[in-house]
């Protein structure tokens, strides 16, 4: 017997009234800005982060998020009492907010690191440098990604 309109409505209404519509919460597959902030605080602690000194070279538009060239450089004399201790790179929307931590010392001579990264979406990339006086400096870059990395199906 086909379901009548009346039966259907009473059934649908009953379900709603009973409040049995399950609420499905899933862990988001992309990092949220909150996760980005948490990852940064994990490195920086409560110290203030200033803008400047750090330069982030990354293409503003990338076709393939699977390999994106990145260069981070920091203005620093790299002497024994004024050098860059570490450089940390983060992203906003990959499944995980960390990209890499790079540890330098006065023998580095120049505070510059290059690598290739994955980006899952059009998003912000943040680079933070920790200097020898334990101050933190950051720079942000926006990247538009047309083919995403990380979460595609494997063949």
């Amino acid at each position, binding site marked *: 017997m086909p379901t009548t309109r009346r039966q259907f409505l009473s059934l649908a209404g009953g379900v709603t009234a009973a409040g049995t519509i399950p609420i499905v919460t899933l862990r988001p597959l992309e990092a949220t800005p909150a996760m980005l902030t948490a990852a940064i605080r994990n490195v920086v602690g409560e110290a203030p982060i200033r803008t400047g000194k750090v330069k982030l070279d990354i293409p503003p538009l990338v076709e393939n998020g699977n390999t994106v060239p990145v260069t981070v450089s920091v203005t620093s004399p790299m002497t024994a009492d004024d050098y860059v201790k570490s450089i940390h790179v983060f992203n906003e929307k990959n499944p*995980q907010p960390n990209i890499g931590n790079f540890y330098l010392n006065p*023998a580095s001579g120049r505070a510059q690191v290059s690598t290739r990264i994955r980006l899952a979406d059009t998003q912000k990339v943040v680079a933070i440098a920790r200097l020898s006086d334990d101050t933190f400096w950051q720079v942000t870059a926006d990247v538009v990604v047309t083919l995403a990395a990380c979460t595609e199906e494997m063949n």
Partner: protein
Amino acid sequence: MAALINVPTKAKRGDIIEIRTLTSHIMETGFRHTADGRLVPRDIITSFTCRYNGSEIFRADLFPAIAANPYLSFFTVAKESGKFEFEWIGDNGYSSTASASITVE
């Protein structure tokens, strides 16, 4: 495993030299699924270290967001002739080393 290292063979004392390294590794993120829905387990390099005549001059923590076949370039001051040693450590007991020599005048 295969690694490509690019270090100048000769340098003047005090020169800032660039070191470039490339190693072959899948860097499986642990976030991808197969066509039938199973998660592909993570398999990445988590740590890279470069030593210059025994002392550490550069270290990196890598995450799944580093592209496959990790490329890293960094700088150091050429102090003395000797050897650079490179070490990559990763998931599932992965470990790989490489070295390069330099003559400093």
